[in-house]
C-alpha cells in the first residue's frame, strides 16, 4: 500500500548531476579555446574509465547497473578529476587517478552516498604524491606557447608520449602560475618582479583566469538552480581571501595579493564544484561555513608554507575528515526548541 506523500517534485540524482556537468561546459569550452583541445582527450578518457569501473564495481556489489550508471555521479567525479589534472598528462596517469577515485575512494567505502572522502580529490592526491613530475607539466596558454597541438596530435601525445616532428615538450608545456610563484620566491625574487612574467595575467594566470571566471559563473548557476547553497563557496573564498590578505599586508613582497589566490589553481572549481560535494561535505548551514572556511585557510597555508603548489585537494580531504564532528556540533535549533522571543 502506498503512503503519503503521494506526489513528488520532478527531480532525481541524475538531473542534479547533469546540471553539475552542464555548469562545467562553459569553462571547458574556454579551456579548449585558450589551451587547446588536449583537455577533451583527458575528459573523454577519464569519463570512459569511470563508467567502466563504476559498472564493474556496481556489478561486483550485486546492484542493478543501469540506475547506478545513470545517476551520473561517476561522470561528475571523472570530469572534476580530469579538470584538476594537467591536460597533457599521460593516459595511465588519468586511468590510475580515476581508478583510485571510483574504486577505492567511492566503492570500497560503500558507493554512492557512503564515501567519506571526495573521490576526485583522492584520485588527485594519489597522483600528485606518486607522480609529481607528470602532475606539474601543464599545457602552456596558446598565446604563449611555441607550438599548438590539434586534437589528434594531443591524443597521440597523451597515449604514446610522442610529439609531432619539430615540436619539443618545452614548446607546448609550462609551469602553472602557482608553480612559477613558488619557484621564483625560492630564488629570492619579489612578488612584484615575479608577476611581470608572461605566465601571469591581470589577476591570476594568463588565460587560466578566464577559465576560472567561467567556473565561478557555472557555480553561480548551480546556486541559482538550488543545487548548492552559498555557504561552502563563500566561506571557502572568504577563508582563503582573509588568510591571504593578512599575510599580504604583513609582507606584500613575499606574499602575493589574496585576489591572485582566488583566481588561480583549483580554487573556483574547488569552491563551487568540489567542496560542495554533498556526500563528503558538511550538511548544516553553520557546519558548511566552518567546512568551507577550513578549506580556504588550509588551501592558503598549504600553498604558502606547505610543500605543494596547490592545496585545494589536501584541504578538502582534511576537512572531509572533520565533517562528522562539524555536523554533530552545529545542529541547528529545531522548531519549538529556540529560546523564547529569539526570532523577534
Amino acid at each position, binding site marked *: *500500500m*502506498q503512503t503519503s506523500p503521494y506526489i513528488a517534485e520532478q527531480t*532525481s540524482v541524475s538531473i542534479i548531476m547533469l546540471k553539475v556537468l552542464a555548469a562545467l561546459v562553459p569553462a571547458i569550452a574556454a579551456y579548449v579555446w585558450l589551451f587547446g583541445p588536449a583537455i577533451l582527450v583527458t575528459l573523454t578518457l577519464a569519463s570512459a574509465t569511470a563508467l567502466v569501473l563504476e559498472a564493474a564495481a556496481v556489478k561486483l556489489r550485486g546492484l542493478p547497473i543501469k540506475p547506478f550508471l545513470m545517476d551520473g555521479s561517476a561522470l561528475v567525479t571523472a570530469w572534476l578529476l580530469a579538470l584538476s589534472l594537467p591536460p597533457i598528462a599521460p593516459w595511465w596517469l588519468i586511468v590510475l587517478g580515476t581508478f583510485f577515485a571510483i574504486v577505492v575512494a567511492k566503492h570500497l567505502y560503500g558507493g554512492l552516498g557512503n564515501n567519506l572522502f571526495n573521490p576526485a580529490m583522492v584520485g588527485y592526491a594519489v597522483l600528485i604524491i606518486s607522480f609529481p613530475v607528470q602532475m606539474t607539466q601543464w599545457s602552456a596558454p596558446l598565446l604563449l606557447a611555441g607550438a599548438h597541438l590539434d586534437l589528434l596530435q594531443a591524443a597521440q601525445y597523451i597515449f604514446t608520449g610522442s610529439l609531432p616532428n619539430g615540436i619539443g615538450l618545452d614548446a607546448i608545456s609550462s609551469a602553472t602560475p602557482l608553480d612559477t610563484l613558488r619557484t621564483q620566491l625560492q630564488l629570492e625574487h619579489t612578488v612584484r618582479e615575479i608577476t611581470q612574467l608572461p605566465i601571469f595575467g591581470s589577476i591570476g594566470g594568463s588565460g587560466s583566469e578566464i577559465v576560472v571566471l567561467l567556473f565561478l559563473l557555472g557555480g553561480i548557476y548551480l546556486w541559482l538552480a538550488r543545487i548548492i547553497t552559498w555557504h561552502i563557496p563563500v566561506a571557502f573564498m572568504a577563508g582563503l581571501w582573509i588568510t591571504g590578505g593578512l599575510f599580504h599586508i604583513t609582507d606584500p613582497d613575499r606574499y602575493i595579493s589574496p585576489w591572485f589566490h582566488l583566481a588561480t589553481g583549483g580554487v573556483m572549481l574547488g569552491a563551487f564544484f568540489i567542496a560542495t560535494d554533498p556526500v563528503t561535505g558538511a550538511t548544516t548551514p553553520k557546519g558548511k561555513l566552518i567546512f568551507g572556511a577550513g578549506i580556504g585557510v588550509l588551501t592558503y597555508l598549504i600553498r604558502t608554507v606547505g610543500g605543494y603548489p596547490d592545496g585545494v585537494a589536501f584541504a578538502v580531504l582534511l576537512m572531509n575528515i572533520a565533517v562528522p564532528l562539524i555536523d554533530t556540533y552545529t545542529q541547528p535549533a529545531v*522548531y519549538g526548541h529556540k529560546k*523564547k*522571543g529569539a526570532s523577534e
Partner: protein
Amino acid sequence: MEMEIPGGTNESRLMNRTLYEFNGGVHPDEHKQVSTARPIALAPLPKQLVIPLSQHIGQAAKAIVSVGDQVLKGQRIGQAEGYVSVSVHAPTSGTVTAIAAHAVAHPSGLSDLCVSIVPDGADQWVEHASLDYRNMEPSHLRNLLRDMGIAGLGGAVFPSFIKLNPGAAQKVPTLILNGGECEPWISCDDMLMRERAVEILQGAAVMRFMLNSDDVLVGIEDNKPEAIAALRVAAAECGFPVEVIAVPTVYPGGGAKQLIKVLTGKEVPSGGRSTDIGVATFNVGTAYALHRAVNHGEPLISRIVTVTGNVHRPQNFEVLIGMPVAELVRLAGSVKDDTSGYVMGGPMMGITLAGDDVPVVKATNCILAQSPGLFPPAPPAMPCIRCTRCAQACPADLQPQELYWFARAKNFGKTQEYNLFDCIECGCCSYVCPSHIPLVQYYRYAKSEIWAKEKDKKAADQARERHEFRQLRIEREKRERAAKLAQRASAKPAEVASGSPEDAAAAAKKATIQAAIERAKAKKDSVTPKNVTDLPPEKLQEIAEIEARRAKIREIAQQPVDE
C-alpha cells in the same frame, strides 16, 4: 519588538502586522480550482450510515444504544469516555442495525467498532436548543460541547472543549482561526469561508468569549482571494475586532505551528501546547461547527468534504458523518475508469483507504480518487547523497537526512536525540528527495518502534510489580498457614488427652520443618528469572536465532512498498 501603546485601539494594532516566515516548505501544484467551481451541495441521505465510535484523538466513545433501537437525528449514540474524548451522534433518524467492527479510515487498514444506522427518511431531530453560553458556568459549557462531539475539523480531531479552557491564566490572548488549507486539491475550508463566513465568525465569537481573547486573527493563504474577501466583509459586521490576514501560500503554511509562527513570530515550544505562548488555534470548520452547536444546539453530525481527483465532477459536499465513500464519490459524477484507490485527506499527508465502504468521519476533509496517471508511484529509491534538500524543505528545522540514517540503522536513541518527535510528518522531505527515499515512512517506523518499546517497558514494569506483589502475598499466606499449623499442633496435646506426648512433639517439629521448607521454596521462587545468565551455548544459539527471525520480520515490515 513592537511597543505596546497604552490606550492604543485594536484598529491601530491591525494596521501594522508584520508577517514572519517559517523555514522550509514546498510549492506543489495546487489543483484546488477544479473543486471550487461549484457551490457546496448537500449530500442526500445514504442507504446506511456507519459511525465509528473513535473519530477523535483520545479514547473511543462508548456505545449507549443497542441493535434495534430507534434513534433520532442528533441523538447521542456514543458517550465520551475518559478526559480526552468526545461523544458521537446519530446523523439522522433511523434504526441501529449493527454495533460491530467495520472498515474505517486508518493508516493500518484495520477495522474499528462502528454503529450502523439505516435511515428512516424522516430526518427527525432530537429535542435541541441553543445554549445561553454567556450565562453559563464555563466548565458546564465545556462539558456540553464535549457531549456535542465538537472536535478539531482541520484533521487532528482534537477534542475542542479541552482547547477552549483558558487555564489558570483565565485568558488566551490570541485566538487564531486557521483558514490556511495548504494541502493541494482540498478546498472544503475555502468553500466554507466563501459561503459561510458570517457563521464562522459567530463561532469565533464563542471561542473569543470562552478564552477571553484580545485578538482574533484569521490566517488564510493568499491563493484564496474569494475566501479572504468574504471573511473581510463578515469581519466588518461581526461586532468585535477581527483581523483577516492573507499569508503566503507555501505548504505546510496551514499547519497550526507554522501559521502561529507566520502570524505571531512565536514558536510553540517542543512538546508543549500553543496556549503556553498565549495562542489558541482552531480550524475555520471547527468554528462553524461550534456556531451550529452553541447557537442552534446541533451536535457535530456533518461536515464539508471535498470530493476530487480522478472523479468526473469534483465538488464540495455537506456530508453526514458515516456516509460511505462509495456513495459520496457517486455524487461527484462517479470516478473515472482508471481509479486505483482513494485517499482521505490531501496528497501530502492523506491516508490510503482500505476500500470504498469506509465511512466519512469528523476528520474527513477530502476524498481524493487516485489513478496511476494522477499519482504515479515513486521510482525505486537510490542512496541518500546528503544533499540536504530535505533539511532545506523541513518546516520543523530538522535534519531529515540524519534522522533517516539513524532510523535505517535502528538507532532509535539517536533519532530521539535529533528530535524525531518534532517531526510533523508533513511530507516535504519526501517530496523534494532526489533519491526518492520514502523518508516520512522511516520516521513513522522509528516513532512506532519507540512507542512499542515504551509500551513493552511499561508492561514489563507492571508485570514485575505484579509478580513481586504476588510473591509477597504467597509468602505471607504460607507464613500464616505455617504459624496456624504450628499453633494447632502445639494445642493438640491439650485437646487430645489420650495422645502420647511424643506424637505431639513430633507433629510440632514436623510443622516447624514444613514451615521452613515452605519458606525456602518461597525464597527460591522469588529469585530473578533463571533464563538470562549462564546459559548453555545451544540455548544462546536458539535465542540468537529467534532474535534474527524477529529482526528479519521487522526488516520486511520496514521495506518500502513501491516495488
